[in-house]
């Protein structure tokens, strides 16, 4: 085989070192002889194997360089949102929401967006391990099968997993357990919703969580339920919540009451928010139940008594479209919530038990029992998959080793796998077959999109192998679906066709197993008593963050660098205190406090001061202190004054899971101070009082109005912000020949969930810079969600504002660049030309929105596997150049080429930016502003529309729709 590459090698070898030698006859002959021999040898050798060969026989439907999209199901958490995964060159690169999906309807949360990065995690466990030594699958299978053989007649087998909903998975587990004498499948969720299911068992005779339809809720009261951020189905709930608030007549716009002790994403966007101490919650629910069910009864001593009376009135008058949600894990309280909802006629309208949610199926009581069994040493085989009990129950971790044989299916080395006898890793969900039934009657499939990068095996397949079944995964899955699921529908007669449609659509509807479950009043229980913190004590509230949740993705750098929408901190495990509480303790932002309780090892955390928090509450985030976070020690640029994100071997933050049962703590200053890594130092639109005019100055970047005010005047949000139209001194210097692309962002739909931030990061190869760089205000995110707080105590109002390059028509950045590295396109985009940029940063200085991001260093791209997550359609920027939102110009180009190939014209909606695509509330709309029929143009022409800093006459292309709230008149 003579390839040009081979020839070149030959040529190189035939060049002989003749210089400097006298070329006499003998040496000439010697060299010639050597040359001929060497040449002959070299031409006999095989050409080096180069893996970058073109496809001789290309896979069907795959064109190199062209993206293809496959429907699957996101398994980053058990919620079961539909995902449409974009693959390029054989690599799944971008998770997007699957349009029309029964659960998530086309959107995905931040965690789902980020989970694609974990596929390319080079620290995943590659193949089975005995203790911590790699071994072959056969070894593990033999050992476990042997152990099972002895357990057939006697012995306890326990499978501990997170919520699993897939019919085939559950059937496999059951058939595996059926082969043992005493086998049980135990599920738990670290962010448990067990009480909701348990309460429904008590009041409705069905252990399930109702499916919540927030779109139908006209009056909604949530108690400690962060349903837009960290509860069990944020995408689904956010879409419904936004639907009840979008473009509604004043009397149809929903009213959202929120009672909480912490400060959540959801609380921030509520119409009426009240602070409620954790110990007041049972009393408040009981009081509301009394008010709603008509009893009224005696006036309570609660701080929110007046509000509860008003709320009860509103709920009752909205019977049939009213809803009360509660996030507490107290069965008694939840039964009373069910009682309220039943009285309000919520079941059958805003709540549905017939097609219930299966997104959290964990049972806290069953786990407790398992711990006792383990403690008594009576468990012979323990298989753990998808959960990290050693992390979630640190006090019980040692109990796990009491199982005679302990198998972990952890994907990454975690606290649990460290204790396991065998580790049989599961593959990433993008490289495996999977099945889901997140909602009763909605079966979904997860399909592998890449050859497994690591040598893993699913729980299903491992259990089949250990039961002696040697079939391959797909056959197993199909067999199970054919037997158990196919029959639950009647529309399609052929299983092959049904299966093909299922694969194509990602999900299928089958008959739900639900049924009628009427409310039984005798199931209502009293709540467990809670005591108020004594003087000087604080109530400890453990709060998940939208990116970190229970810590299962704590090793994902995108999620760690995601600025928390509430605290605006990244890479930090911060305790939050209200301003009054901080003043009482004499601590300020960044002061480290020591949190103590009887019998517990004290926690230390830096303080973040969070207005809106209850004054008797200290919050601490869950999911920190995870194994796997040691990897971040060296993340970010290394230079002389640069500080490491973590000390070598240290974990990020502290694990607070052991404190779940602790209600009250003592908090003390430790005297230490750290500078927190925040992306937003100043969190108010009100300028500091001593720098403001006598009557104060509130900047109008976020405009807002009440529903009532907008009904009276559609332009009410712009009151007092009139700016005379700026006269044009010069004719436009860049003609707009094509469409004029722009965005419309609905601030009343944005709740700050940050899905767009991660979507943008994945789409645009935004680098991760580490804690020190964030601390130095050098985060690289192209889209950020500004958070503005005002007021104190109960009156805290929060506004979120997604902010990205505004693609100004008269862009200040374009005129100042000396080398024309930022220019305007004919279709209204402000373009950044990376390879022309010399890095003067003048553009960033003059940008009034401060959306430009500079590459201060060459950010590390050392992990070759992780680099596969990079989008090949977007340049990886080098050190010293400016970058910013491009309005996903690569997506615009891709859509245009595709449309041209098909001989069509680009229509409104053909192009979606990454942020828009994933937004659960559809707050972001992209399109052609010059086309009056486009959605974006219609939104931009509406009464709520305005542009930030339009008085500067920079003609931004991003329109914001004023935030609408529905407070009581």
């Amino acid at each position, binding site marked *: 085989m003579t390839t040009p590459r081979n020839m070149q090698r030959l040529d190189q070898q035939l060049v002989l070192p003749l210089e400097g030698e006298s070329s006499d006859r003998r040496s000439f002959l010697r060299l010639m002889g050597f040359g001929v021999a060497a040449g002959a040898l070299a031409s006999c050798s095989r050409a080096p194997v180069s893996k970058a060969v073109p496809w001789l026989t290309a896979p069907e439907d795959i064109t190199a360089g062209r993206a293809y999209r496959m429907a699957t199901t996101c398994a980053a958490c058990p919620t079961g949102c539909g995902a449409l995964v974009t693959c390029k060159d054989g690599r799944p690169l971008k998770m997007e929401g699957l349009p029309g999906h029964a659960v998530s309807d086309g959107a995905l949360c931040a965690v789902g967006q980020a989970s694609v990065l974990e596929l390319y995690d080079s620290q995943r466990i590659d193949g089975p391990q005995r203790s911590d030594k790699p071994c072959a699958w056969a070894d593990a299978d033999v050992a476990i099968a042997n152990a099972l053989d002895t357990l057939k007649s006697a012995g306890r087998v326990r499978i501990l997993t997170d919520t699993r909903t897939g019919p085939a998975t559950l059937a496999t587990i059951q058939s595996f357990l059926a082969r043992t004498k005493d086998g049980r499948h135990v599920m738990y969720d670290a962010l448990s919703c067990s009480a909701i299911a348990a309460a429904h068992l008590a009041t409705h005779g069905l252990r399930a969580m109702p499916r919540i339809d927030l779109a139908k809720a006209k009056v909604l009261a949530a108690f400690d339920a962060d349903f837009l951020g960290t509860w069990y189905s944020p995408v689904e709930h956010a879409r419904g919540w936004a639907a009840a608030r979008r473009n509604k007549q004043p009397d149809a716009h929903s009213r959202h009451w929120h009672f909480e002790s912490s400060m959540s994403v959801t609380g921030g966007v509520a119409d009426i928010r009240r602070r409620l101490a954790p110990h007041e919650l049972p009393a408040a629910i009981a009081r509301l139940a009394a008010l709603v069910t008509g009893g009224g009864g005696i006036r309570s001593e609660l701080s929110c008594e007046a509000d509860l009376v008003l709320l009860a009135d509103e709920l009752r008058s909205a019977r049939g479209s009213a809803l009360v949600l509660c996030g507490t894990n107290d069965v008694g309280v939840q039964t009373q919530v069910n009682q309220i909802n039943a009285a309000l006629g919520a079941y059958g309208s805003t709540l549905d038990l017939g097609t219930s949610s299966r997104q959290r199926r964990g049972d806290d009581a069953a786990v407790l029992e398992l711990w006792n069994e383990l403690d008594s040493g009576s468990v012979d085989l323990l298989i753990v998959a998808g959960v990290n009990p050693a992390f979630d129950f640190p006090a019980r971790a040692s109990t796990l080793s009491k199982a005679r044989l302990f198998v972990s299916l952890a994907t990454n080395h975690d606290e649990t796998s460290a204790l396991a006898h065998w580790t049989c890793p599961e593959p990433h969900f993008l490289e495996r077959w999977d099945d889901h039934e997140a909602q009763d009657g909605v079966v979904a499939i997860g399909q592998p999109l890449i050859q497994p990068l690591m040598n893993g095996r699913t729980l299903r397949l491992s259990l089949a192998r250990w039961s002696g079944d040697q079939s391959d995964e797909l056959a197993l899955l199909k067999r199970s679906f054919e037997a158990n699921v196919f029959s639950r529908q009647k529309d399609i007669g052929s299983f092959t066709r049904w299966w093909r449609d299922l694969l194509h659509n990602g999900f299928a509807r089958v008959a739900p197993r639900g049924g009628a479950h009427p409310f039984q009043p005798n199931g209502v229980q009293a709540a467990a008593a809670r005591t108020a913190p004594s003087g000087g004590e604080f109530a400890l509230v453990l709060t998940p963050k939208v990116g970190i949740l229970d810590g299962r993705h704590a090793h994902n750098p995108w999620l760690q660098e995601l600025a928390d929408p509430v605290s605006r901190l990244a890479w930090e495990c911060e305790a939050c205190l209200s301003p009054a509480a901080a003043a009482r303790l004499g601590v300020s932002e960044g002061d480290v406090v020591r949190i103590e309780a009887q019998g517990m090892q004290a926690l230390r955390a830096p303080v973040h001061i969070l207005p809106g928090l209850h004054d008797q509450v200290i919050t601490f985030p869950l999911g920190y202190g995870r194994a796997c976070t040691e990897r971040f020690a060296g993340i970010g640029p290394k230079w*002389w004054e640069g500080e490491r994100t973590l000390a070598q071997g240290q974990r990020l933050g502290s694990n607070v899971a052991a404190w779940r049962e602790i209600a009250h703590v003592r908090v003390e200053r430790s005297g230490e101070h750290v500078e927190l890594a925040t992306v937003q130092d100043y*969190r108010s639109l009100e300028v500091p009082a001593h720098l403001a005019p006598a009557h104060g100055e509130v900047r109008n970047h976020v405009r807002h109005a009440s529903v009532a005010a907008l009904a009276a005047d559609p332009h009410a949000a712009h009151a007092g912000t009139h700016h005379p139209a700026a006269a044009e001194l010069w004719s436009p210097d860049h003609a707009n020949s094509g469409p004029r692309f722009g965005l419309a962002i609905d601030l009343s739909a944005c709740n700050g969930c940050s899905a767009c931030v991660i979507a943008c990061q994945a789409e645009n190869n935004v680098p991760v810079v580490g804690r020190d760089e964030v601390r130095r205000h050098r985060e690289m995110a192209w889209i950020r969600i500004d958070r503005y707080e005002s007021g104190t105590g109960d009156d805290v109002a929060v506004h979120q504002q997604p902010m990205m390059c505004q693609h100004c028509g008269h862009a200040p950045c374009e005129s100042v660049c000396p*080398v024309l590295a930022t220019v305007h396109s004919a279709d209204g985009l402000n373009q950044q030309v990376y390879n022309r*940029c*010399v890095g*003067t940063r*003048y553009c960033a200085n003059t940008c009034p929105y401060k959306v430009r991001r500079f590459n201060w260093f060459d950010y590390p791209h050392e992990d070759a596997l992780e680099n596969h997550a990079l989008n090949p359609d977007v340049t990886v920027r080098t050190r010293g150049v400016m970058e910013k939102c491009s309005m996903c110009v690569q997506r615009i180009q891709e859509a245009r080429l595709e449309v041209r190939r098909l001989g069509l014209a680009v229509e409104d909606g053909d192009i979606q930016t990454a942020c828009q695509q994933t937004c659960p509330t559809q707050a972001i709309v992209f399109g052609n502003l010059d086309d009056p029929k486009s959605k974006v143009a219609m939104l931009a022409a509406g009464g709520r529309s305005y542009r930030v800093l339009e008085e500067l006459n920079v003609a931004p292309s991003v329109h914001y729709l004023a935030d609408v709230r529905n407070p009581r008149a």
Partner: protein
Amino acid sequence: MTTISTATPKASAIHHATPQPHAPAHSATDIPLITGGVTRSDVTRNVMDPIEQGVNGRWWAAFALALTALLIGVVCTWYQIKTGIGTWGLNRTVGWAFDITNFVFWVGIGHAGTLISAVLLLLRQKWRTSINRSAEAMTIFAVICAGIFPVIHMGRPWLAHWVFPLANTRGTLWVNFRSPLLWDVFAIGTYFTVSLLFWYLGLIPDLATMRDRAKGLRKKVLGFFAMGWNGAARTWSRYETACVLLAALATPLVVSVHSVVSTDFATSFVPGWHATVFPPYFVIGAVFSGFAMVLTLMLIARGVMRFENYITMKHIHAMCKVIVFTGSIVGLAYTTELFTAWWSGVGYEVFAFKNRMFGPMAWSYWIMFGCNVIAPQALWFRKVRNSLGAVFLITLLVNVGMWFERFVIIVTSLTRDYLPSSWASYTPTWIEGGTMLGAFGLFFTLFLLFCRFLPMICVFEVKTVLPPSTGSKGGHH
């Protein structure tokens, strides 16, 4: 020494407008420009001695200090270019800080040189003769220091040549003529070229003097640079014409360079930058800081090089008066800025100035105000002007204050602009400090080398302002 100097001063059109050089010029004050009864030969000897006899220990000490600072700067700059701009304390909100502060500071310093040599030449201010050479040298060195910063502040300094309108193979892609940074390139480039030419032209007669006093290779080298100066009346006549022409050419540059530099800010959208007062405000600030720096250097040189007879109290008084005058205009500019911000009624502008005065970086504003507006007011008093220590201290304060003026304008404006969400602070790194130190090191290294190898005082011009009695005494050259 019996060498016949060909650089004998002639009755020049500029300097010898009157046959009795000193009489009308000195009518305002009785202090003569040159004291100590020095003769023409004394002038030549005193100025040439450090060059021909070598320098003293104090020079070496100063040189070692300056060179160390320069080396620190070189190391810091090397490290920054190798690692990234991230080694400076900048962030997404504050894109410029020490870099452009130093750039504007050094450009400003340079102004006094041009003003002294060109404008004062045209205005026939004789007191300039003793200081113009060093002032011009200072201009050139300051512009070199200034020019470094825009290059090293780039993210990719190896592509710095892209800011020049060079022919290239990139099609129609050229430079952006709307960008004030590009205007800077032209302004600074022109300024440097003209200043260098003017300085060199002024050196030629003195180089000829040196040539005539030298031997061997030194004579040849100096001969090359003296361009065959023969001291003929026709040579002098043409020389004077060229000087006046170049002075006329350089004069608009005094105004233009800093006006252009100010447009970096004035054309930008940042509240606190976006002001039409900036060009005159920057020019007068530059003259102010430049004179302060000239006076600082003169006071040092006077002591170190023993030039008490040439840089006399009269010179010091004259420069002090310029400083108090320009300093007052600078004060006026500061208050004008406040007035226009208030008068504009634009909330962002008003806030920017309140933030300067009372915000988190207010300390820098008050350093600026104290050093630039209040401190120079002491120079109204003759007693203060007579005290070299006091004058020296005030000039140092003015230098500090003018550095802070640029820092205040650049950094405090950037830290808090339109969207409060993006407000951020700024803290310099050691690398940044080292780079700034390096610029001072470079400046003083060059200046000390200049003191060592070139005549620091313009010999032939000083001779024109010698009192006639002493001037006619030394007839041996």
